[in-house]
């Protein structure tokens, strides 16, 4: 188990180094660059040359990469040129990451809490109206673009009904104290419960919008997995043995069907990070996704590098945790 974890962490390091190289080169091969983003329609050839020299962009790319590596080892990932000019890129990421994590956790929770039970029920009552309605619902979840759904939710609940806030993370007038950057947690820690509630309310619509795709996928996988397991010999045997339906369902069906579902949940974290770009834009949440959108627009290489590398690490780590959790679900895997 320990060896397995160490091996996977070594793989993670390799992934990060290779990705950093590719990312570094790829960003710099895109047309345009921070210089035109900074100077815009006020650029002159002299000003451009001067700025390129000052930023070291006139150097060969491997020299630039070598410098980047040298600084990155000391924890300096460069300074933002566009998202939050002048702030260290790592700080930009750390300031924004809690917003994205808060949103993603809530969205994933929503997808799991609704998706798994519904998938299970749909499988058990295969062909029923519940099954058909949920399948249609999950199809819509995958097919409707996130931004469209987000606009729809916003239009109905925020603008027409005025029941929920249209965007942002918290009402400005609350003057809430910031501790960790996770607003809900902050509100609980400082006992500013109105602030915690306010942040939660702000998260409802974005979390629903972001959860639709993971929900649909988790629902479908659960349904398919449960259907598969239900036909297995050991379920028939268990039934023949005279075990109660409750025990069969819990121990034999649900337990064994969970393996592919947990894998899917791990893979869906990647989708969450990608979906956050759109959701954060529509709901104006100053998270990592918004930083990526602005970063590409303004060619903010340092911020893009940090954010994309960090997202890759999060993704790999989550999937490592998923792999480790297999052992809990399936004892046979522990000995390997």
């Amino acid at each position, binding site marked *: 188990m320990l060896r397995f974890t160490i091996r996977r962490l070594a793989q993670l390091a390799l992934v990060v180094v290779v990705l950093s190289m590719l990312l570094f080169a790829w960003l710099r091969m895109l047309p345009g660059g921070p210089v035109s983003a900074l100077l815009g329609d006020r650029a002159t050839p002299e000003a451009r040359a001067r700025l390129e020299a000052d930023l070291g962009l006139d150097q060969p790319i491997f020299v630039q990469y070598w410098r980047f590596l040298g600084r990155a080892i000391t924890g300096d990932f460069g300074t933002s040129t566009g998202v939050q000019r002048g702030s260290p890129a790592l700080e930009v990421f750390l300031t924004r990451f809690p917003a994205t994590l808060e949103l993603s956790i809530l969205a994933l929770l929503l997808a799991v809490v609704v998706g798994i039970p519904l998938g299970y029920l749909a499988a058990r009552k295969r062909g029923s109206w519940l099954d058909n309605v949920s399948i249609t619902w999950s199809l819509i979840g995958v097919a409707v673009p996130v931004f469209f759904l987000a606009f729809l939710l916003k239009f109905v609940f925020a603008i027409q009904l005025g029941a929920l806030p249209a965007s942002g*993370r918290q009402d400005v007038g609350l003057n809430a104290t910031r*501790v960790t950057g996770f607003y809900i947690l902050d509100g609980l820690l400082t*006992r500013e419960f109105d602030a915690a509630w306010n942040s939660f309310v702000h998260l409802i619509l974005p979390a629903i919008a972001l959860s639709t795709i993971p929900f649909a996928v988790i629902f479908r996988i659960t349904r398919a997995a449960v259907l598969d397991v239900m036909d297995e010999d050991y379920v028939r045997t268990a039934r023949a043995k005279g075990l109660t339906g409750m025990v069969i369902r819990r121990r034999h069906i649900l337990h064994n069907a969970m393996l592919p579902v947990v894998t899917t949940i791990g893979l869906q974290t990647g989708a969450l990070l990608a979906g956050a770009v759109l959701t954060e834009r529509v709901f104006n949440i100053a998270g990592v996704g918004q930083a990526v959108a602005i970063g590409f627009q303004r060619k903010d290489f340092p911020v893009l590098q940090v954010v994309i590398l960090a997202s890759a690490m999060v993704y790999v780590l989550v999937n490592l945790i998923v792999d480790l959790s297999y052992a809990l679900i399936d004892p046979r895997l522990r000995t390997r």
Partner: protein
Amino acid sequence: MSRAPSAGPRRGSSTRRRVVTAGVAIVAATSLAACAQSQREAGGGGEGGTLTFGAAGAPDLFDPFYASDGETFRVTRQIMEGLVGFKPGSSDVQPELAESWEHSPDGKTWTFKLRQGVKFHDGTDFNGEAVCKNFQRMFSQTGAGQNNALSYYWIENFGGFADGKTPSLYQACDAPDAATAVVHLTRASSKFPDILGLPSFSMQSPTAMDQYQANNVQAQGDSFVYPEYAKAHPTGTGPFKFASYDESNGTIKLARNEEYWGEKAKLNELIFRIIPDETVRKQELESGAIDGYDYPNAADLKALRDAGNNVQVRDPFNIMYLGITQKNNPALQNLKVRQALAYAVDRETLVKSNMPEGASVATQFYPKTVDGYAEDVQQYPHDPAKAKQLLAEAGMPNVTLNFYWPTEVTRPYMPDPQGIYNALAEDLREAGFTINPVSKPWNGGYIDDVDNAKADIFLLGWTGDYNTPDNFIGTFFGTPTNRFYTAASPWGEELAAQLKAADGEPDEAKRNQMYQDMNRKLMSEYLPAVPLSHSPPAIVTSPRVHGLQTSPLTAEEFASVSVSEK
């Protein structure tokens, strides 16, 4: 009850372990909570109320000297003031921190009489010495501080720095007494003192700048690192004081300056919420979360008005042109071909169908409100037949042009680049040109290519910073080797020299005469580009906002604004 013992030893230990774990968790949580005390102060409310304005992007920093982006200036303009300001609703200069000024006949020595009893937000005095310290600070930038991306406005308007590598307009400043500052220039300039109204040259507290190391900017890695001053301690004399910037929630708060020398701000608190997406800004206004935002989409104006909002269209202070690069295509070095372009485009229809309300056809390279505007320039009405005839006369009936246009951008002067391109390309084809379209993202190669003179013709424009002709045509044609590449024509260098001479003419009447002559020549003999239109940007506020005076320079000040109850 004695359930635990009867449950057996194994179970008991497990329960105990759970209890211990829970206990640890509670202790951890309470200790965390203890060090996370609420620091909430009673904000907002009070008489005057709060106004929340939707800003389109995060300000780069709060020291306007190092800034050139509108979102920074939108904030610092409320906090800081210059020696001169602009009359509300116009681009005309008026006294601000200086009550009056006079200059020597050669235009090189400027004496400013300063307003008395003015204090910076940190309580220090504004006086002659403070003025000179500000100028000295701007002039003696070193290292990264000299970079165009930081001290853009200084370089653009004053030229070089104290190290003398490039000549500077600024020479010295002295303060004979607390109420006087004398600024010495190396030559006369048409831009002085108007440029002192630019936010970049606002007067900032020398004490605060020292304390928070305002000059400590550094080029590090791929970017610049700003000092504490620029991030959290901007200190001016204005009607609002900087209160806080919450990066994680995208909000900037300003509070009323109770010790302001003039009429105090009506608002208690002014909040800027950063909302990068234009549609989201509109929705936030509709849901009542913000009280106004800038640059509403031209297509939304009617709906916004119908909903009871106040949509104000500013006076135009910009220009969009069809740029011509004379470097690559020899045909474009021929005046007749360039004139054919001008006759070919239907600017009346363009303005009517592609531009927002209040837009107008541009007859020359800047709007009417700027000095030196000439009424009698050569006109180019839409006339495809005339265009064809000119091409024939030039002996080039089949000219092929690489027409560059940008994607992923809207500018105040160019609301819909694709629509504008389509209209113009159609006009040009009708006149016999062959058009080869090249479209690139604004920050994805467009600006690079156009600046490196790779286009034949291109779409671009400019928003004025202040009311002098040099800010428009000086910027465009003062360098013969830029995107227009006027150096390819015999008059390119001559035009640059004329612009320099006019800028250095201290006599206003004479100077305006020179600019008028130049505008006539620009439109007849030179025609280095085709001016297309002026289109005024709009600003929208909710019905509860009163007293917002718009500015053609998009330099709105919120001190006069009040809000009624929701």
